[in-house]
């Protein structure tokens, strides 16, 4: 059975201007219990964290442990 491209919004937002993934930080990716965050390379070649998988327990270690307060955890749309 072929797969579709159905879109979904994700609850966790990273402020690219504050994120220091480019300096090697991966804290939020490391701590997330559901392992849903990853580091992406932006168009200008620098790096930033982002939510790759919509599988969030809205628990907050990513936000609490980020050294630059770049992460905001919102509630997943389906339950907010």
């Amino acid at each position, binding site marked *: 059975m072929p797969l579709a491209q159905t879109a979904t919004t994700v609850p966790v937002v990273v402020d690219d201007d504050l994120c220091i993934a480019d300096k090697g930080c991966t804290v939020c990716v490391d701590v997330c*219990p559901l392992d849903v965050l990853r580091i992406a390379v932006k168009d200008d070649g620098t790096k930033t964290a982002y939510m790759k*998988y919509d599988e969030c327990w809205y628990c907050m270690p990513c936000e609490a442990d980020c050294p630059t307060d770049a992460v905001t955890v919102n509630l997943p749309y389906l339950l907010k």
Partner: protein
Amino acid sequence: MDEILDGLTQIDCDILVIGGGTAGPMAALKAKRKNPEANVVLLDKANVKRSGAISMGMDGLNNSVIPGYATPEQYTKEITIANDGICDQAAVYRYAQECYGIIQELDEFGIRFQKDQNGEYDVKKVHHIGTYVLPMPNGDTVKKALYRQLRKARINIINRFMATRLLTGEGRVAGAICVNTRTAEFLVVRAKAVIMGLGAAGRLGLPTSGYLYGTYENASNSGEGYAMAYHAGAGLANLECYQINPLIKDYNGPACAYVAGPMGGYTANAKGERFIECDYWSGQMMQEFFDELQGGKGPVYLKLNHLAEETIAEIERVLHIVERPTRGHFHEGRGTDYRKQMIEMHISEIGFCSGHSASGVFVDEHARTTIPGLYAAGDMANVPHNYMLGAFTNGAFAGLDAADFINDVDYASFDEGEVEAERTRVLAPTKREDGIPPNQIEYKTRRLVNDYLQPPKVTAKMELAQQRFEEVREDMETGMYARDAHELMRALEASTILDCAEMAASASMFRTESRWGLYHNRVEYERDDDNWFCHTILTKGADGQPVHKKQDVKPYVVEIAEDEKDAYYKQRVDPSSVAAE
């Protein structure tokens, strides 16, 4: 990251602890301290720093037995009554005797507990009979404090490996097969003893929000502990005694009568009237909740809007910061304020979790399962109403016993073919060109759990569930498709969830009576002490299907008087007394 790599490594250790949440770290610490020469490995699917139910912290100890407030005898009695008598008391009694020592140790780790002006522990009454709830003002530091101890003790920590199957041989445990959640590489761990602390089966029913991860439990606890024990041949006890919780609707987190209750908050019906005397979670209490809704008196709410401003501010300070800190965001988004509105609650989807009910892998008072060398503690082991302190304390028992067990044994040999078979099973979804993604297999399984297994339980519905689960299994085994290592982890979880769903149905069919209030409310059957005052033990049969047997409840350590036995069924508030509230 996430690209599927081909690889297999084998390592050896003396004690393998699977699950670095709550029970696991304590087990590892105790084992290492007792036997400093032992090589202790603590392995987790997530990162031990922030894994498990207490990932962000905890509001308090729900079930502490503190001298001056409660005795081990009282506590054992209360938990026995809350479980309709189906309880091997030895494990509960040992917990009750030794948990105070664990509290003192946690205190030394830097986790503070609430004290009154005289420096005495400030224990609150929430349970029906006794006083056991101890708040933790800096509950947000639990995980950090534990992690420091693990580093200090030089426990070997392995993160992001998911255990999928246990290895056995020579009639005892031999190790475990694990898969890297970011590369799909295999790790075979040979061990002389294995301690399981993999938490609840938290993704069994589907939350009414429809969001797969909108669960009460930490959603990374998908029930591998139960599935692994099952496939290894261990006995699982009373799985029909589901976990069902009274939660904030949609948010699906605890309404926290345990925090708000002692400060004057309570569960109320739509009129704002109290209808249950005691907000402590039990099957009998959930039945009253259900009846209130059925009687058209719902929705049911958490009521705080009668409290003074400073009390509410204090409640917010705890509930919006420690355990589930997004709770404040949720209320803000909804425009609900404890001062003005009551907060809508609902009845959760089902799960397995002894932390709050009683079902799980069968263990004795040493946390030994029915397989020599294999231990289980915390939410996945069947010691009833474990909660956090139970996970710590029973985890400690497991670690202490395992430290001795390894002295007398070498590695058990196992069939290498089992590893090959597991590799084939695990990787099958990566070998297809397309197919059904794991999230659809999972969604369908969990939706069927809601449709057919959520109590009240009806035989014909459960039979339908069994048929439908078989169909989903066929689809899963022939057509599930994973594109990367992360999806493969979800695929493995989907298969665990299906195993647990089948066990839930099968166990519920076996016990042809009603017991534990809503948890096992089988509408066609009344409670039947003559035939069913016993444990039910589920194991894997020769044909790969669950088989069941009855097992006697061990003679009580603490006797229960005839007129006390049904205390938990006396929950309903006498309507004439409500006016006085």
